[in-house]
């Protein structure tokens, strides 16, 4: 059965403290602390208050990372989520502009997201030989295409009644609602993945789909559920994105799928399936958020920030490999 910890660095000593420290999550916590110390030294404006104020835009993407982690653990990928966000945001603005109550706007976003996700799930479970990358690439184009057709020549729509969205963007003291919601959702997703039968089945499918199938796991049912939930969460993300801009346009949600995948993979969730846990994903998500806010506050060139994140990601993926090779080389010398 697959190990549930993230990337393994080496054969760790048995002491539980050492074990925690040497696990991928332990390293991520240390990186998180270092990043915060670095940002605080780097930017005179970096403090809890400014961090909390700037966080909501990034936190919306953290929602996407949660179901994306499940998909990666399955050994699959969904690159259509950015487009689903775009379509949900567009539809919720349209419903909002008809004067409907805000509850209906929320339901619209979630239902549209769920429908899009179930389309992905349906295609992938009905035609099992199709690779998820290609199917979701196609739906990525289709969902954004539909959004663009709805948006028409102007390419953007704004919500005429922003009260509901202002409510979503609200705060308790200086802590935004979205932070609470992210934490709650993260706990739910982590517990289901880590502690429940459903979660264990997901790992089983990711480790070896055929074995899982012959052990009596409803592989296709589980895949369908996960892709559908991915869509629902995209709808949730869309609501918070709209609450930052009171509108949607053809570029809304561009690249969100890659950000979500990056957070998960940096968190130790293997894209080949069966490995990693959500604790790592959540910590890495906050590392990325803090780093972006801290560097951004000193007006570091946006492309340089992306470059740093890219290097971090490559480093994170390659580190266990590099350490392994160094060890091998040392053994050979001996």
């Amino acid at each position, binding site marked *: 059965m697959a190990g549930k910890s993230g990337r393994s660095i080496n054969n760790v000593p048995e002491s539980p403290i050492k074990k925690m420290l040497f696990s991928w999550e332990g390293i991520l916590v240390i990186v998180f602390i270092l990043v915060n110390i670095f940002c605080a030294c780097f930017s005179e*404006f970096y403090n809890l208050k*400014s961090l909390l*104020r*700037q966080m909501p*835009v*990034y936190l919306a993407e953290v929602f996407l990372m949660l179901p994306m982690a499940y998909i990666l653990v399955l050994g699959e990928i969904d690159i259509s989520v950015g487009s689903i966000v775009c379509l949900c945001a567009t539809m919720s603005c349209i419903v909002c502009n008809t004067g409907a109550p805000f509850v209906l706007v929320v339901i619209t976003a979630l239902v549209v997201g769920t429908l899009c996700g179930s389309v992905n799930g349906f295609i992938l479970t009905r035609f099992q030989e199709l690779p998820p990358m290609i199917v979701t690439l196609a739906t990525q184009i289709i969902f954004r295409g539909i959004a663009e057709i709805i948006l028409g*020549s102007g390419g*953007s729509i*704004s919500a005429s009644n*922003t009260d509901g969205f202002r409510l979503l*963007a609200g705060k308790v003291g200086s802590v935004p609602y979205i932070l609470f919601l992210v934490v709650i959702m993260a706990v739910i997703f982590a517990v289901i993945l880590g502690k429940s039968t459903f979660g264990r089945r997901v790992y089983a499918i990711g480790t070896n789909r055929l074995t899982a199938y012959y052990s009596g796991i409803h592989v296709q049912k589980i895949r369908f559920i996960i892709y559908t939930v991915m869509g629902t969460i995209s709808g949730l993300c869309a609501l918070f*994105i709209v*609450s*930052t*801009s*009171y*509108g949607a*346009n053809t*570029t*809304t949600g*561009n*690249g969100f799928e890659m950000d979500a995948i990056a957070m998960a993979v940096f968190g130790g969730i293997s894209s080949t399936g069966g490995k990693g846990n959500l604790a790592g994903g959540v910590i890495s998500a906050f590392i990325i958020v803090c780093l*972006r*806010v801290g560097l*951004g*506050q000193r*007006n570091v*060139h*946006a*492309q340089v*920030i*992306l470059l740093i994140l890219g290097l971090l990601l490559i480093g994170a993926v390659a580190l266990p490999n590099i350490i392994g090779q160094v060890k091998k080389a040392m053994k050979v010398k001996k």
Partner: protein
Amino acid sequence: MNKKLVSAVLCGTMVLGAACPVFAGVADGKKIALVGKSAGNAFFEIAAASYKETVEAEGGTVDVVYPEAATADAQIKVLDNLISQDYDAICISANDVNALQAKMEEAMDAGIKVSSFDSAPNSDSRQVFVNQAGTVAVGQALMDAVLDIAGGEGQWAILSATSQAANQNAWIDAMKSIMESDEKYSKLELVEVAYGDDEPQKSIDQTSALLENYPDLKVICAPTTVGIAAAAKYLQDNESTCKLTGLGLPSEMIEYTGADDAHSCPYFYLWDMQGLGKLSAYATIALANEEITGALDETFTAGDLGEYTITTADDGGTEIVLGLPLQFNSDNIEEMAKLY
């Protein structure tokens, strides 16, 4: 030993103090941020350089910040960063009309003065917009150029970008209504509006089709930089008697601009991006000094550009209009081609 050290430090301080120019500018100590649409737009950078120069000459500092992508979402992240940094004023070229409203309001609530130039966010998202030239002013300049080059009468045509381009259509409509409103244009005949889709080859094809269909065509007006450059090359290579004007980039038009028959374009227009940057800088400073609030009919002095009055913009907000577009002809094109 100690005394020596102290005196050395004192001497050093005095030298430094004397070397530092004493700023008495109107923007003394003001911290201003200028936000672009995206990095790598040479056109915007001309205005940004002029903006920065103007503010710095007045003793303030400017940080020019670009978002990671040319989207409103990316600009929201930039604005978030800027609001954290205690800026006195922010000036932005917006990627979307409405999407920035939440953040711009947040900035204004934080006491930051918010203005815009080049591309305006909606009227609730700004205190004032600095506009290059109104649609009508562009239409008027182009219409007068057509009249002048055609010699007062004859056939002319428009070579536009795409049929959906909002700015193109606004200028074309302005030209049409100007042509109808004044008797002096009555001998001009607009034969066709052709669309080159802002592709060089398609623009050339459309130009050659115009010449074939209308052998007596006197002037083509291309209010698009791609179209005018393509048509200029085609007309000049074929030694056509048909002349050209419109909106273009000096660096692309330098070979074709001249008053004689060997050149296809006598003169053309474009935004005065340097002037725009300068005026925006003075507008920002005036806002930061609370000389103006962006309300209608307020006036302020924009350095050597003179006095400006805040007027009503098309979108219901307020704006400051720089003036007419800049004319490029054989006299100034060489110098301007180095910039644009």
